[in-house]
């Protein structure tokens, strides 16, 4: 008998369950504060344009208008979310300066006594824009002569001086030359909006002690706090972020979009300020999962062994990279899949276009790799004339195998998982697959 356990193997009531079924859970915009102001954004109506002028005169006359914020009000206007972990360069504009790079990019923030007044004032801001050619497609963005999206370089994020994240393992070309079959595929995926049921929102409240309390539904409270401190150039201890209650995120609430401007507005007005996305902002402006294009080429032997894989992937990060460079790194580490392939070459590009920025969404970078890899596995099965089960068992990685990005496989369970899955769907596996385990291969074994 194993010792009695209090949690493992039991259903434990959720601490927030009663709040959810009674409606007493306080989500961000369920809070109200005396004197609350509302912040709304003037957004670019064009995908790519030079900003020649911004005229606030009519907006300022709207009853209830309190003030406008432009880039000149933002202490550190150009930032990069992942700057916290050393990612460079700083590239995203809290409020646009001389150019907008995607439709919906924030140009001016309007603070007003009511939401209606804020929207009315937003509608009365006059923008003088000169439209520029735009690019919406990863490979077009890499062609010579394509419109350049970034202010600091070309249309690729740079990984330690390289335009892509690279993995090199063994000798792919030599392996292709001796392979019995070459199997190729191109895999395209579209952007997906995380579409949380509660939209992105925060309320920033000035406190008597000189600090600011920021109620937020961010999924990443310290990312938000630290980036806000950088953007506003205040010490972190000036900010008290209250998070934890998130009405759905799925990666859509890890960027730092609403907190810096709401906090800045609270500083400038000494009043609580609410900045909440409308449903259309959530869908059309907030970051999505990236669109991907993945080229995959495998060298396969007649017995079903994959001996080489070459991958070229492009993720469309939109106008700013946000968390996408990290998605590509994860992608590159996983594009060989849970398979033992001795020769692998991967180039993974984070590409800038004039689409709304993309960022995190559930398993980002890896989900797309898995989609491509698993379709590819079925194709391989067809070409060599084996069933897909066999291809998976033959190529499954084991403990102690070296992965292409130089990490040893530990605690592998692919074989056992497939055996269990076969059992559940009533598929009779041949004896040699039933006998397989993920245990380390014998010395010198393959």
């Amino acid at each position: 008998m194993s010792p009695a356990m209090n949690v493992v193997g039991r259903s434990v009531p959720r601490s927030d369950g009663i709040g959810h079924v009674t409606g007493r859970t306080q989500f961000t915009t369920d809070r109200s504060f005396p004197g609350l102001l509302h912040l709304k954004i003037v957004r670019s109506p064009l995908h790519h344009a030079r900003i020649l002028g911004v005229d606030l005169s009519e907006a300022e006359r709207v009853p209830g208008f309190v003030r406008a914020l432009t880039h000149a009000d933002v202490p550190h206007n150009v930032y990069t979310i992942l700057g916290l972990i050393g990612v460079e360069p700083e590239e995203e504009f809290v409020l646009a300066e001389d150019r907008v790079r995607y439709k919906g990019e924030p140009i001016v923030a309007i603070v007003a006594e009511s939401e209606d007044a804020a929207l009315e004032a937003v509608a009365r801001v006059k923008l003088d824009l000169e439209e520029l050619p735009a690019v919406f497609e990863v490979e077009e963005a890499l062609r010579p002569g394509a419109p350049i999206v970034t202010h600091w370089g070309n249309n690729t994020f740079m990984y330690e001086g390289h335009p892509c994240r690279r993995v090199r393992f063994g000798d792919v070309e030599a392996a292709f030359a001796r392979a019995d079959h070459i199997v190729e595929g191109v895999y395209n995926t579209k952007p997906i909006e995380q579409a949380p049921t509660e939209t992105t929102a925060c309320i920033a409240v000035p406190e008597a002690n000189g600090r600011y309390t920021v109620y937020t539904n961010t999924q990443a409270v310290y990312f938000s706090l630290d980036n806000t401190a950088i953007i506003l150039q205040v010490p972190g201890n000036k900010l008290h972020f209250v998070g934890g209650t998130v009405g759905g995120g799925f990666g859509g609430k890890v960027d730092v979009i609403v907190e810096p401007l709401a906090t800045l507005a609270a500083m400038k007005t000494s009043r609580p300020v609410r900045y909440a996305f409308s449903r259309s902002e959530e869908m059309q402006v907030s970051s999505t999962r990236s669109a991907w294009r993945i080229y995959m080429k495998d060298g396969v032997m007649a017995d079903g062994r994959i001996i080489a894989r070459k991958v070229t992937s492009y993720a469309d990060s939109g106008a700013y990279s946000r968390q996408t460079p990290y998605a590509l790194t994860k992608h590159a580490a996983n594009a060989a899949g849970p398979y033992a392939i001795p020769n692998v070459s991967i180039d993974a590009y984070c590409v800038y276009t004039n689409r709304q920025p993309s960022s995190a969404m559930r398993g980002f970078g890896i989900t797309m790799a898995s989609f491509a890899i698993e379709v590819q596995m079925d194709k391989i099965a067809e070409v060599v004339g084996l069933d897909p089960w066999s291809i998976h068992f033959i190529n499954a990685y084991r403990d102690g195998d070296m992965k292409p990005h130089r990490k040893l496989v530990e605690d592998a369970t692919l074989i056992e998982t497939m055996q269990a899955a076969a059992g559940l769907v009533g598929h009779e596996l041949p004896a040699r697959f039933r006998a397989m385990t993920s245990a380390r291969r014998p010395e010198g074994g393959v």
Partner: protein
Amino acid sequence: MGSKIVTFVLGGREVEVMVKPMTTLQAVLRYQLGYTAVKEGCRQGGCGSCTVLVEGEPVLACLLPAEDVAGQQVTTLESITPVDGLDPLQQAFLDASGFQCGYCTPGMIMVSKALLEHNPRPTREEILDALAGNICRCTGYEPIVAAVEGAAQAGAAPGAQRR
């Protein structure tokens, strides 16, 4: 057009509010009266998170001008929560884990409440039909349907025992 006073019955209690023309019932309930169980997933009639009962029928509070409920009975999730413990339908959502983030939950419970009042023994099809206007991005709906089925089996609706 100026504001006017609108009187209605909220959870059995008469309330009087000063309302600007075209202000939604959702805005009045959330921001004038503090009934924040009425959620605001879209404010355009697309998600069901703002569902309340007007005269016992489920209504999207984000699409209804508050003036339209003058003299009527309005019920929100706050109003069906007993002083002690939970309504059997709330208990069923808790038991079946009919939520993850919880943002759709008030709307889901209000729609289910109306369904069970009218039809204490709904079929699975009838439950799906009743919930069709409510979006849940988290659960995949199965635990929500299970919660409503569980509530129906436990006789959550007042009419249930009588049949």
